[in-house]
């Protein structure tokens, strides 16, 4: 129980490691301005991310967050409950740090000839810090600050290719929608505060009954909070930034945002709604079960995402829409909360976000590789890549089939367990049956466009001649690691499932 000796604040170690790495990068940059020493910078970033990962895993194993009843160290509360470190925190921190590490390694090649190396990496680290903080935030204050801490660097990262119109346009749209959304979010917070007089989540929950008079106010506030989360998780109707941002941003950043940032968005959503707005109590006040909103959002989001993805020509954009679709899947986790076994649905959603972490990252990193090769952006441009780069394309096949939920890959478990639990929840909440049906339709459709990409690289013959393709070490390493993780996740899914389900159970309490 080594953790016990440490002071409480060390529970935030993962976030601290991130921020430390960011500062280290600044130091390096200030010692040697405009350094192009990529291996040093990317190395530091990767090491930092892996360190954070190591710490997180260590905490998990040490039993941080595991209820003391089960021999764990119990949930660690910091700063009067402004931050909390429990299994959910660690679970999502794991996702964030893994993705960050992969992205850092991949950027080593992708950003090779970029002018502002150290800024790039330190921004990534700061964003990661924000996300780690989101995972731990336990008060609307910290939630908002962490959210902004994650968002602001992201804006910059998306637009970092200053002379690339796509990047800039992406950055602009991302920023504008983001600003609008955060304004709405902030206003929502203010309303909730008004209704309950508190910002700390437990406190809000305790004071819900006092807010009877302001049911409408509270309801509006909650709805605005939902808006804020919807923006962060790229869910309808706050998703409009996503396709452009993902398409225009540097591919590693797209991976970073669509995996880590999305996961972080979900963790705050999970935490706020499970802790601050317990279903029955809230329903009593605002007169309606807020899961209804998520049912609608989930269905609309997954449908819109998949249908729009089906007919894309640009691979990156297809992946962008598909990530909207997956946001829809994950939203089911919140939609099912009012039903018996809601914690199982949420757990399934968390598993999905976990696996999605590396399979989606891997997919975007393959796009990064393709951009590195300069083969072009459309499906046709990808034709016949498998003949020249079988390993990378095999990895792509793994990612695609895993995203489609075809065994024997990690994506299978998360998707089908989600499906299973959705049906289970339907037992007490009929709306979930509609969700399940939508899930079937959408995954069938998703099958079409995922396999379309596999078809392009494996089946089609290349249009015209292509000269030999380089094998950038960093990108390859990242992709292969992601692929291996995706495959290994199938047999080794037991721990993931247990962790997610426990975390969900504890969070709901």
């Amino acid at each position, binding site marked *: 129980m080594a953790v016990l000796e440490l002071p409480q604040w060390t529970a935030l170690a993962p976030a601290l490691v991130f921020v430390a790495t960011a500062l280290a990068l600044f130091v390096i940059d200030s010692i040697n301005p405009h350094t192009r020493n990529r291996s040093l910078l990317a190395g530091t970033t990767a090491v930092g991310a892996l360190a954070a990962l190591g710490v997180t895993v260590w905490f998990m194993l040490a039993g941080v967050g595991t209820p003391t009843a089960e021999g764990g160290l119990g949930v660690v509360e910091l700063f009067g409950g402004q931050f909390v470190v429990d299994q959910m925190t660690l679970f999502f921190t794991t996702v964030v740090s893994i993705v960050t590490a992969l992205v850092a390694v991949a950027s080593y090649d992708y950003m090779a000839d970029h002018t502002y190396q150290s800024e790039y990496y330190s921004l990534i680290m700061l964003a990661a810090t924000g996300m780690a903080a989101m995972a731990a935030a336990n008060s609307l204050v910290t939630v908002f600050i962490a959210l902004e801490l994650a968002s602001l660097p992201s804006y910059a990262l998306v637009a970092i290719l200053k002379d690339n119109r796509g990047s800039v346009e992406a950055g602009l749209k991302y920023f504008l929608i983001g600003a609008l959304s955060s304004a709405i979010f902030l206003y929502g917070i203010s309303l909730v505060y008004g209704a309950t007089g508190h910002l700390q989540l437990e406190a809000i929950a305790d004071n819900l009954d006092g807010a009877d008079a302001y049911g409408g106010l509270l309801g509006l506030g909650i709805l605005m909070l939902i808006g804020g989360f919807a923006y962060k998780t790229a869910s309808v109707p706050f998703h409009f930034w996503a396709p452009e941002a993902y398409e225009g941003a540097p591919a590693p950043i797209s991976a970073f945002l669509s995996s880590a940032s999305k996961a972080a968005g979900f963790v705050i959503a999970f935490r706020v709604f499970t802790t601050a707005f317990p279903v029955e109590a809230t329903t009593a006040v605002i007169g309606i079960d807020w899961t209804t909103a998520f049912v609608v959002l989930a269905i609309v989001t997954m449908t819109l995402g998949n249908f729009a993805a089906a007919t894309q020509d640009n691979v990156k954009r297809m992946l962008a829409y598909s990530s909207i679709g997956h946001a829809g899947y994950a939203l089911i986790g919140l939609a099912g909360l009012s039903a018996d*076994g809601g914690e*199982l649905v949420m757990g399934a959603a968390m598993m999905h976000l976990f696996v999605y972490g590396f399979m989606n990252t891997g997919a975007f990193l393959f796009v990064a590789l393709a951009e590195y090769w300069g083969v072009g952006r459309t499906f046709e441009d990808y034709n016949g890549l498998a*003949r020249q780069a*079988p390993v990378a394309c095999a990895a792509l*096949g793994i990612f695609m*089939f895993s995203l489609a939920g*075809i*065994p*024997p890959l990690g994506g*299978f*478990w998360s998707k*089908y*367990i989600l*499906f*299973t*639990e959705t*049906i*289970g929840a*339907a*037992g007490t909440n*009929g709306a979930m*049956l509609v969700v*399940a049906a939508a899930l*079937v339709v959408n*995954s*069938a459709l998703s*099958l*079409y466009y995922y*396999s*379309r990409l*596999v*078809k392009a690289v*494996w*089946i*089609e013959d290349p249009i015209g001649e292509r000269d030999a393709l380089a094998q950038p070490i960093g990108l390859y390493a990242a992709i292969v690691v992601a692929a291996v993780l995706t495959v290994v996740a*199938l047999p080794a*899914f*037991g721990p993931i*499932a*247990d962790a997610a*389900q426990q975390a969900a159970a504890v969070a709901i309490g």
Partner: protein
Amino acid sequence: MMIEALLAVTLVGALVTFVAPNRIAGKLAFAISLLPAGLGLWLFSAFDGSGNALLEGELAFESRVEWIQIGEYTVSWFVGLDGISLPLVVLTTILCTLAIVSSWTPIDDRESQFYGLVLFIEANLIGVFAALDFFVWFIFWEAVLIPMYLLIGIWGGPRRKYAAIKFFVYTNVASLLMFGAFIVLVFSLGDAVTSFALPEIATAMLEGGPEAFMGVAGSTIAAAVFVAMFVGFAVKVPVVPFHTWLPDAHVEAPTPASVLLAGVLLKMGTYALLRFNFTMFPEQAEAFAVPIAAIAVISVIYGAMLALAQTDLKRIVAYSSVSSMGYVILGLIAYTQFGVGGATFQMVSHGLISGLMFMAVGVIYNATHTRMVTDMSGMADRMPVAVGILVAGAFGYMGLPLMSGFFGEYAIFFGSFGSGRLPYSQVFTPLAMFGIVIVAGYLLFALQRTVFGPYHLETDYDVGRAPLHDVAPMFVLLAIIIALGVAPELIFEMITDAVDPILENGGEL
């Protein structure tokens, strides 16, 4: 552990082949595939099981390990063989070995990947028949899609992309439907079930049956689930009207893929029908007996009529598969020992015979590069041996006595004619039997036009005798077919032993 060994050998072999140089891939894959084939025969000789795997039977080579906990349900790695699955496993191993040999000639591009995929598909097929936990079974069931998609897509004919995607999406949608239905069943079984182990679920079904779920009465649930699962499997079988993916897939697939598709993949559907619908839902099966029998008869006659209209040899065989599968359905719904046993026997027998047919057609195609009946005549003049085998196979398909096909069909007819469970069985059976006339019609018509008559060939290739390694596998198949035709008891005994418990649940002995 023998089954694990079988799977491991095949999977490792697949990996090895995948990275092997193209030059030796074919021979290497053959050498590797001898291991599972030999192992399969060993299993056959060492088989010591009795009874039905789902109904408290004595399993052979059983092994069970807890894997994943989903809510209160346990998923465990649970495999074992009984008299129904063992013959199919052996069939798979043998057919795959022969398919590999038969593809030495036609496959001349990306060999290592091709043979790797074939071995991969073999592993999954073995898994499908050996698995006894729903999730394990479903993983293998779905995992078959990936290699088959690629086999058709990469090495297929002109419209291969369309065929591949159609096969992929169509069958997967069916699987989703079936999966959802089954999960509903599991949840509606309530506390009676705590794992996804099929025996447990079967017992719960037969003893308690589903409780009300989502406010729907248990009996309604059972009926709905039965129908949904029947449809889901019907696509895989396929039976009219869900058959349209089959001819496309067959026509475009390369010979060995067709061999496996017709030889084993279709059997997955009927096998699943037997395992799930007809083992777990005896009452519903009886309730729906008439419509199902009607579907069976329609499949037989309609499929045969379609075959009659074709001019592409592969399409002919493909549609005749639809027709033959109709017999199997009829035998299953009859619920007599000869009916169900004969159906199971017919699965094996049809696997061998249709495999033989596709190989023979493939050999002719290798030489002529056409499969159009109208493009050739008098092939017997140039390739007497291959044609001789084709004719033998055709007569096997027509159910010539002393070949396995005859026993399969005879047992089904006999079993269904006397069935007390199937109303109007004395009407349905003769109707279905008329298929044996039509099948003779279109096969002989095709033979007359292609292999007999004066030699003529539209495409300008000089046709000579087929190489030994093209003909040898067909001889092996022919030998097995005749052996099973002369002494069906070789496997019929163990089949009936495994079938009896099914019949005891409302069936008749």
